[in-house]
């Protein structure tokens, strides 16, 4: 069952633009929401993560926005660069069972020069 729904499947953005990827979850027990970045031929790597006690977290050009009431969270990449071209996965887990991390289907981002 897809407990974390991610959209869009693919995204093309011009260099310097804003990339936005959205995720929605069902389980209200989820309390940890990471984003992973995966380059071709590599495993996913943690990019940024948020907990529901804050509505936004920013690290450099990457921002997570979190809407607890809507059960949605999104990744914003400001000033997108060709080097950001990768597949991005959102995920969610709950403290009572943090062995069970649920991943979205992934978004393939292409940033055109």
């Amino acid at each position, binding site marked *: 069952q897809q407990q*974390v729904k*991610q959209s869009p*499947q693919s995204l093309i953005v011009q260099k310097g633009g804003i990339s936005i990827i959205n995720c929605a979850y069902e389980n209200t027990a989820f309390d*940890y929401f*990471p984003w*992973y970045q995966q380059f071709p*031929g*590599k*495993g*996913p*790597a*943690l990019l940024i*993560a948020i907990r529901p006690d804050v509505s936004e977290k920013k690290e450099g050009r990457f921002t997570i926005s979190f809407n607890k009431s809507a059960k949605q969270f999104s990744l914003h990449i400001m000033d997108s660069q060709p080097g950001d071209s990768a597949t991005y*996965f959102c*995920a969610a*887990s709950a403290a009572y069972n*943090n*062995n*069970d*991390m649920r*991943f*979205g*289907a*992934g978004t393939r981002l292409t940033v055109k020069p």
Partner: protein
Amino acid sequence: DVKVTQSSRYLVKRTGEKVFLECVQDMDHENMFWYRQDPGLGLRLIYFSYDVKMKEKGDIPEGYSVSREKKERFSLILESASTNQTSMYLCASRRDRVTDTQYFGPGTRLTVL
């Protein structure tokens, strides 16, 4: 930096063969995971190990088994490979149950003919 290595990047096997995928982490992490990654499905947990000789089933354990005889090594075993097990297999490790960040290996792309 945490390093998670997987024994093969690419593997081609025949239906019915027994397949071993090896994963090694060098940071003395307690927890290790095996996922499979398929387009449109994201990452799905096959098995999880929280300590040496300890394991728990994930979402899709059927057709797979695991072995953890040493803390740094976690093996995934396909007892009798089938074509529907053609996939990308990702190993991950995590320091312990109270931390959230998982560190992924580069993946093994397995093709079963």
